[in-house]
């Protein structure tokens, strides 16, 4: 996967300076993403998955954030040393991003058409008119009814799901090679969630871009991703093709995550309580020594707290950071 990878992150560390000390939000993340691939990045809130995604586009506020180490190779070129001007050329044109909160991610004082057109005009130098036509086209692509009319509407005239469609249209308007979707369905109703996931799958099939889907829902990953990276407390703990991961999860955390997916069949059949992982995510100010999951792990042994377990390959494409 490493050769010819579209995006390859190696040993990325992003730390945040706070009044209480350094928060090590992302502390050595490795992942890679091939052309046209869908990669799911899963983990609890605060595990560093959003920061990882935002760092790819350098959208993390610096300061307080800082890339302490590692490389972000985009088509072989390291993005870490790039200046603002070069990053700006990359954003939207090569890498598009969709955020979690469609209700607040659009500027309330401009029409959605103007906001989509702004991106197109910036990167492709189209005329005002051509850019607006592209905006209509994009709205039609994401199945917004009456796009010719809706293009002149303001964000507050759209529902949450529709706004997320607008966000997707905007992110895809310059035909990027990678779409980062940062919990695109978390803020939406369940029925709308499914629609947005379907839309993402459809867009991927039509436009052929790679997708980095960040989510905390294992179910979402199972439906959409080809490969999955599981993150915990700023680190990758397991990485595997999606079938392999669900069939043979090796890391106790991944196993816990999969067991905590609510299932209608088992719950109805056995009236079992939904399983949860005990404890809470450790503070990233002073992470526990050794394996960060050890304090919550039911298999933890002495060796777990002795040193951080490295990622090791257990079968082709399946890597896990656990001594067990």
């Amino acid at each position, binding site marked *: 996967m490493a050769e010819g990878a579209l995006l390859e992150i190696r040993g990325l560390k992003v730390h945040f300076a706070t009044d209480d000390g350094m928060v090590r939000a992302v502390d050595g993340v490795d992942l890679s993403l091939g052309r046209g691939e869908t990669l799911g990045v899963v983990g609890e809130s605060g595990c560093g998955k959003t920061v990882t995604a935002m760092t790819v586009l350098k959208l993390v506020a610096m300061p307080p954030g800082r890339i302490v180490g590692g490389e972000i190779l985009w088509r072989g070129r390291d993005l870490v040393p790039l200046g603002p001007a070069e990053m700006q050329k990359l954003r939207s044109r090569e890498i598009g991003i969709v955020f979690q909160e469609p209700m607040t991610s659009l*500027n309330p*004082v401009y029409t959605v058409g103007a906001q989509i057109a*702004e991106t197109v005009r910036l990167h492709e130098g189209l005329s005002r008119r051509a850019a607006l036509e592209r905006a209509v086209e994009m709205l039609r692509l994401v199945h917004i009814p009456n796009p010719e009319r809706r293009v002149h509407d303001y964000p507050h005239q759209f529902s949450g799901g529709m706004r997320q469609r607008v966000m997707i249209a905007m992110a895809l308007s310059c035909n990027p090679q990678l779409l980062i979707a940062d919990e695109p369905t978390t803020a939406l109703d369940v029925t709308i969630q499914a629609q947005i996931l379907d839309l993402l799958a459809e867009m991927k099939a039509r436009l052929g871009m790679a997708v980095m889907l960040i989510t905390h829902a294992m179910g979402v990953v199972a439906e959409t991703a080809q490969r999955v990276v599981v993150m915990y407390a700023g680190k990758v703990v397991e990485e595997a093709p999606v079938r392999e991961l669900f069939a043979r999860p090796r890391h106790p955390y991944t196993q816990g995550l999969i067991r905590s997916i609510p299932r209608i069949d088992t719950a109805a059949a056995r009236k079992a309580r939904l399983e949860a992982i005990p404890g809470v995510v450790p503070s990233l100010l002073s992470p526990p020594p050794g394996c960060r999951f050890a304090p919550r792990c039911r298999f933890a042994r002495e060796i777990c707290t002795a040193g951080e377990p490295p990622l090791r390959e257990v079968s082709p494409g399946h890597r896990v950071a656990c001594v067990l």
Partner: protein
Amino acid sequence: MSQYLIRRLLVAIPSLLGISVVLFTVLALAPGDPFEELATNPAVPPEVRAALRAKFGLDDPIFVRYFRWLAAMLNGDWGYSFVSRMDVDTLILQRLPTTLVIIGSSQVLALLIALPVGVFAATRPYSVFDQIANTLAFIGFSLPTFFTGILLILIFSIHLEWLPFVYRADIEATGWRWLWEHVRQSIMPIAVLGLFQGAAWTRFVRSAVLDVIRLDYVTTARAKGLPERRVITRHVVRNALIPVVTLVALQMPAVFGGAIVTEQIFRVPGIGSLLISAILANDTPVIMAVTFVFACLVVFFNLLADILYGWLDPRISYR
């Protein structure tokens, strides 16, 4: 939009009427009238004074006098100043342009300071620039205009002798020289008012920009690849201006109040100093007319704020 405007103007009528009733009643209840000084003048017999009062209807009940005033006002008759011996409307028209020029320029100056400084400080919070701007703004709006006004006069007129300290309306020169003299004598009053307002607004603009700059859609704008400058001007400032506009409009009455004091310090022959001298001379028609003009200006600025508000924020619709 035009329908909204017409309705707003129609709504303004009852509020102005209400204001005029209150003003008129308060003035009528206040002790003293234009003929008070005749009472102390031994050459004027009390019968003459009583006859004058009767002639001008000052002994009628308040509501009768109010309606007489209102009827005259609607006919364009603003009354007669007993002290200046001229019509009130000519008196006001003489003074109003000066006040509007001074207040207008000072507010423009205030915005020219507050917007760039506030935005620049907010985009670099806690930087050296921000700290200095904050400190200066704090000092600026803590110092009352009557203090800074006198301070400026002391420095620039008395010590340095650069600027005249009394504002004169009767400058004989013509052409460029006339303009130059006017600019010279306007600098200090405009600076005093403008810096005071500018200081207050700088802090407000800064906090408004700080509120907006951490919102999600600003990150969206950055994610589009827009240069930071454009993110700030197009996506941040436009939204931050919405609360600022409200503040500016709501502060207009206070601005006029502050202008009265400033005009008094620099002897600017504006509407504010007219009001002060009218109050001192018990010149009721002038007091009434000037306060009414102030009321109209305040109502007008509120309307202007509402229109600007709707222009800045499409979520507000005129219906």
